[in-house]
Every structure is written in C-alpha cells, then in structure tokens.
C-alpha cells in the first residue's frame, strides 16, 4: 500500500511545503512499511527533487481543469488517486481548504497541523499545534483511513533519496465539479520569498514610524535571504501589505530566525510567531514585553541599530 502525498506547486514549481509533506509521509512509511506516492498537478519541475525526499512514485496529472484552484476539483483528484489508507497534505492555504472535502470523500479522519513525526502508526498517534502555539495536543486515530495536514516549518524537510519513477495519469474531474466560478487571480510580484516557507523573517512595526523607513528592513531581509513581515497596526494603516501581517488574525509562521524591529510584542502578535526557533528583538523601549519572549535582544533606536546590523551581516557574509 502506499501513502499518497500532495506535492503542491506554485506556477509549476514544487514548493518547500511539498518536500515537507513527502518527508513527513516518509516518517510514517518508515514505521508502517508503506511506499510513498506523490501527486503532482500541472508540475513543470523535474520529479528528481521529489525522489530526493523519498517519493517512490510520482503521479503526474496534467490538465487545464486544475489551472484554477477550487476545493472540489482538487479533493476529487486526490480521492481518485488514493491507494492506501493515508493521505498527507502540507498545511498550506489551498490544501487546508480541500482537506475536509477529501476526508469526507474518502471516509477518512482528518488530522490537521501536525508538528512532529508520529510516535505510533497503529493507532496513528501524533502531536499537533493547539492554542495558537501555547499548547501541544496529542491525538490518535483509532482506526480507518486518515487525511493528515503537516504544519509548515515544523517537522521540516529530510532527505531520503530513492530510485523513484514517474507516470502520467488522468483523473475524471472537470471544472463543473466545482460550484465556484473563478473570476480572477491576482498574484503579487514573483521573486519574493514566501512568508509561510521562509527560514528567516525580518519583521517591523510601529517603531519604524512610517512606511518610507522600510528600506533598511528590506535591505536586511535581502542580505539574509529572508521574507519580510509586519505587525498588525502597520498593516491596518496600510504601511505594509496585509499579506505581511503576522499574528493571531494574520499568518502564523515558524521560521528558524525571526527578527522583530520596533514591535512591542503584544500577545496577539506573539500568537503568530511564538513557534519561531530563534527570536531577536530590537526595540528602543527596555520594558517592551517582547524581550520576555525573545532569545536575543538589543535595546536601542532601530534607526541606529539596524544599519549597524546590516554592516555586520555584510562583514559576516564577506568574510
């Protein structure tokens, strides 16, 4: 039997989320003895990269039907391709959307936002994120099929090279399977690092005093190969795009390194970043609550500290 994995793509290229999902499926397969089959919808990347993470087989589905994402069509496609009793999806926006529909179609139990390898596969037992990062919930699927979503930047990617094979396959899905009519899709400029996938994030808030001061934030982010993020207040007043807002009602991220500049650290903000591995806080207020939630902190004026940090990073990279 094989574990089916949704290897999500963006503009035909595999996302890091796809590698995370395959890595997670592999962690189950190692205990259960199953093989791993990845499903690639309209992918243009070579399948080699999927074999690197442990996909024994890649099923390539190429069809205009899937050019626009709708929950019903994607759920139906994966339901048709299912082989064993386990489907693994990355917990991306799209996959999280069709996951419940897929679970209903395959009479499976849905488990979302898993953060670590299962401690047992029979019954399937694993930890998931809860209480906005303030709690870890261990759940168990007593029996039967399951659909699993894997939190991004949690379990991570693990190379496990195999000699995989690919095959083209069709599914009997058409656009009319969806009740949605896709009117338009607007994509922000490509080339920006995906905030959900970034390993390093540079974030700033009201301490920057105005949108015109963000140049140094973007420069630091470029140097570190980082994505940029922001606090809720600056997103609300339009200094930064709302896609950058991290926090309780924005995105929840878990990069390896989160650098917060001029952000006080309100609980609602922490709820979006508390799973970051390392947190650096730069703030002129020594009493800022964020320092209590940080690993490293500098009390100082952002307009003095950040340019110095940029210089030091340049030196570090040049060395």
């Amino acid at each position, binding site marked *: 039997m094989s574990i089916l994995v949704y290897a999500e793509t963006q503009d035909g290229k595999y996302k890091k989320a796809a590698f995370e999902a395959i890595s997670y499926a592999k962690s189950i397969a190692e205990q259960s003895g199953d093989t791993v089959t990845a499903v690639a919808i309209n992918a243009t990347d070579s399948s080699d990269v999927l074999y690197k993470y442990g996909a024994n087989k890649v099923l390539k589905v190429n069809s205009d039907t899937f050019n626009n994402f709708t*929950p019903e069509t994607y759920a139906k496609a994966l339901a048709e391709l299912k082989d064993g009793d386990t489907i693994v999806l990355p917990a991306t926006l799209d996959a*999280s959307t069709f996951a419940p*529909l897929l679970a209903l179609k395959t009479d499976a139990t849905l488990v979302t936002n898993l953060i670590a390898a299962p401690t047992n596969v029979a019954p399937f037992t694993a930890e998931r994120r809860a209480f906005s990062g303030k709690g870890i919930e261990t759940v168990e699927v007593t029996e039967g099929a399951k659909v699993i979503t894997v939190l991004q930047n949690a379990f991570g990617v693990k190379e496990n090279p195999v000699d995989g094979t690919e095959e083209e396959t069709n599914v009997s899905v058409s656009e009319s399977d969806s009740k949605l009519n896709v009117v338009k899709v607007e994509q922000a400029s490509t080339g920006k690092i995906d905030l959900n996938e970034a390993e390093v994030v540079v974030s700033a808030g009201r301490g920057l005093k105005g949108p015109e001061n963000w140049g140094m934030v973007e420069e630091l982010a470029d140097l570190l190969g980082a994505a940029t993020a922001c606090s809720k207040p600056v997103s609300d007043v339009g200094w930064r795009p709302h896609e950058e807002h991290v926090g*309780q*009602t924005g995105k929840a991220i878990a990069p390896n390194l989160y650098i917060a500049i001029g952000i006080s650290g309100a609980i609602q903000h922490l709820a979006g970043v508390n799973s970051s591995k390392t947190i650096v806080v730069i703030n002129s207020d020594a009493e800022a609550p964020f320092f209590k939630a940080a690993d490293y902190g500098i009390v100082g004026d952002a307009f*003095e500290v950040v340019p110095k940090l940029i210089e030091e990073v340049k030196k570090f990279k040049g060395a």
Partner: protein
Amino acid sequence: MKILVCISSVPDTTARINFTSDGKEFDKNGVQFVINPHDEFCLTRAVQLQETQGATVTVVTVGDASVEPVMRKALAIGANDAIRVDGDARDAVGVATQIAKVAKEGAYDIILTGRESIDYNGGEVPGFVAGMLDYAFVNGCINLEVEGNTVTAVRDIDGGHQTVSANFPVVIAGQNGLVPEADLRIPNMRGIMSARTKPLNVVPAETAGSKLNVVGYVKPEERGSVTMIDKDNVGELVRLLHEEAKVI
C-alpha cells in the same frame, strides 16, 4: 437573505493556557471566554448585510450553557436570533454535523464561519459543513459582496488573491479583512438591552461518531531567558546567531 453566523466561545487571547493535572483537558479556571476573533469579522459583515440589504442574521454555537454569554454578546452586536446546539464542541466532525443540520433545516443562504478557532486551531469545520451539505465553499475570505442570490468573494492565496463567485447557498470561512478592524461592531447599550429578549433557542445535538481521540495536552518548552546584547556591539549578535543559535 438568511445568514447563519457560526460562533465559537474561546479563551481570551491574553488568557494563561494551562491544562488539568492529568493533561487531558484545557483548564478553564479563571479564564475569560470571548467570541473567536475570526468570527467577529464574520458577525460584523453579516450585520452590515442586515443593515444594507435586509438580511436576517442567526448565530449558532455548539456547546453547553456556559457558551450562552458569548452568544448574548453576538445578539447585542446585532444578530436577530440565536441557536445553541446542546452538545460537545470538541470534535470538528461533530460540530460540523450540528451546524450542517441547522443550516439545512433553516434553509440559510450564507453560512459564515471564522476560518479557525484560536483554541484548537483545527480550521476544519467550515470545509466539513460545506462538504456535508455539498454547498459552494470559499475559505480564507477577505471580501464578500452579495447581489441577488450571488456572492462574489475574494480569498487569500499564497502570494495573492483569488476572486470567485457562486450562487446561494454558500459556506464562507472569513477572517481579518472581511471588514476593516476599525469597523468591528461592539455592543452598545441598546444592543445589550435588546439582546436580553431576542430568541436564544436550545436544540439537542445529533449523535456523530468520531475516530479521533485526544490523548492529552502539554505546554511547549519555555524559551530560556533572553541574552541581551549592547547596541554598540551588534557584531556580537551576528556571532551568536551564527555560532550559538546556528540560524545564519
């Protein structure tokens, strides 16, 4: 137009999160419960549609009597009536089963729910309701317009937005952006007074099987205390990030 807004009663964001000594449940002692933040955006949008297009707004919550104060607050914000399904709110399939029944029996045109609750972070109920009823489903909705029996909705996607349209009935999972934060409604005196007499009906729950057990809860490891670095020694931060934290 009939709108059903699904409300969760959740611990306030600033609440200390603790679990019972056997680790099996969330410890509610001393915790303040509020309307789930994502649901607040949905409720305000629904009340706006009530004012501009004459929609009726019903709120539904699955839970025991302890969730009623939060439901009265939703009535105070402007909902017309409320339904409490007297059942266990822990399992997503169970909750969705109850909501689907209420939605179908009441023939609601739009079912609005927050995209996830901030306590259990499942994000599953909206999709389950849509799937169980075979209704159109828009997840992560940040803009909703209604004309006649058609909705036009914008949803968040990775790196952009997708605009979709669908005919009633639809399930919309909403979030911040559905209305601007500054427009979120709060109860005023008149709202609070009228909420006392608006209908809040209690209905029994359907049985729903679940194959998902909660084994237990723990708190994540606490971060160690912060290492402060002098602002004149920024190079030290870079060294520590490289050598100690190993993140650059």
